């Protein structure tokens, strides 16, 4: 076990624990807050894995925007403060499938990698990533931009009935 391993295990424990709480808590808003914890922990994993830019993008976009939007929506839909009892439907199919998927994937990864070891790459600078995005990946990048624009327009049209019906 190296330092990186220890850090990963710790962050992973936080991430998984927060994830469990996200899907099991009976407080709607707390689910969102646990999601923040989960995302920060995953961002920490990225940092350990030498993906700084991805980590900070995750913090900026997920924590700063996505979760805020989610909480915003929770509040706009008048979620109650305190526990709600009707958040879940019967759990066993979900548990079966979710557990199956998680365990299956884990088994695949374990059987694939065993206890092999790799050396971590040197912390990736944003420069290298930027070069990649604007050379090899520039076309997908543009497409993603168009997609974002489409999503923006779509969200506006959907949420404003006065535009759509005309």
């Amino acid at each position, binding site marked *: 076990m190296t330092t990186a*391993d220890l850090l990963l*295990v710790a962050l*992973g424990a936080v991430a*998984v624990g927060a*994830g*469990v709480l*996200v*899907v099991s808590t009976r407080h*709607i808003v707390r*689910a969102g807050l646990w*999601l923040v914890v989960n*995302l920060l922990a*995953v961002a920490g994993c*990225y940092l350990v*894995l*030498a*993906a700084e*830019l*991805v980590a900070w*993008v995750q913090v900026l*976009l*997920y924590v700063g925007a*996505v979760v805020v939007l*989610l909480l915003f929506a*929770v509040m*706009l*839909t008048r*979620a109650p403060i305190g526990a709600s009892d*009707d*958040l879940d439907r019967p*759990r066993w199919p*979900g548990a079966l499938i*979710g557990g199956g*998927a998680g*365990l*299956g*994937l*884990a088994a695949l*990864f*374990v059987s694939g*990698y*065993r*206890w092999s070891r*790799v*050396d971590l790459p040197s912390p990736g600078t944003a420069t*290298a*990533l930027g070069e*990649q*995005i604007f050379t*090899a990946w520039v076309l997908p990048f543009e497409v*993603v931009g168009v*997609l*974002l624009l*489409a*999503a*923006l327009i779509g*969200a*506006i049209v*959907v*949420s404003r009935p006065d535009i759509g019906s005309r």
Partner: protein
Amino acid sequence: MHPVIPYVIAAALVGLGAYGVLVRRNAILLLMAVELILGGVNLVLVTADATVRAVLPAGGQVFALFVIVLAAAEIGVALALVLQLYRLRRAVAVDEIPLEREP
């Protein structure tokens, strides 16, 4: 670094997300579970980037960035839909959406 650790974490996150998607009735909670799945996927991508030496350097990270951006777009549209649903029905429980009638 043993790559199996982040991979197993990612698998666990995906499993949790799948569980959440299937179990949660509230649309917003369901979206949160979807974010868990995406987080797991991203973790796989980033780990693979650190583990596998690909032809294009940093391909996994680039993919992860794309996934994050797509998730942002997805959440924008999805929340617009959820709010519209709430405006129409005063509820955001997905299993109360009637689908029996022809659209």
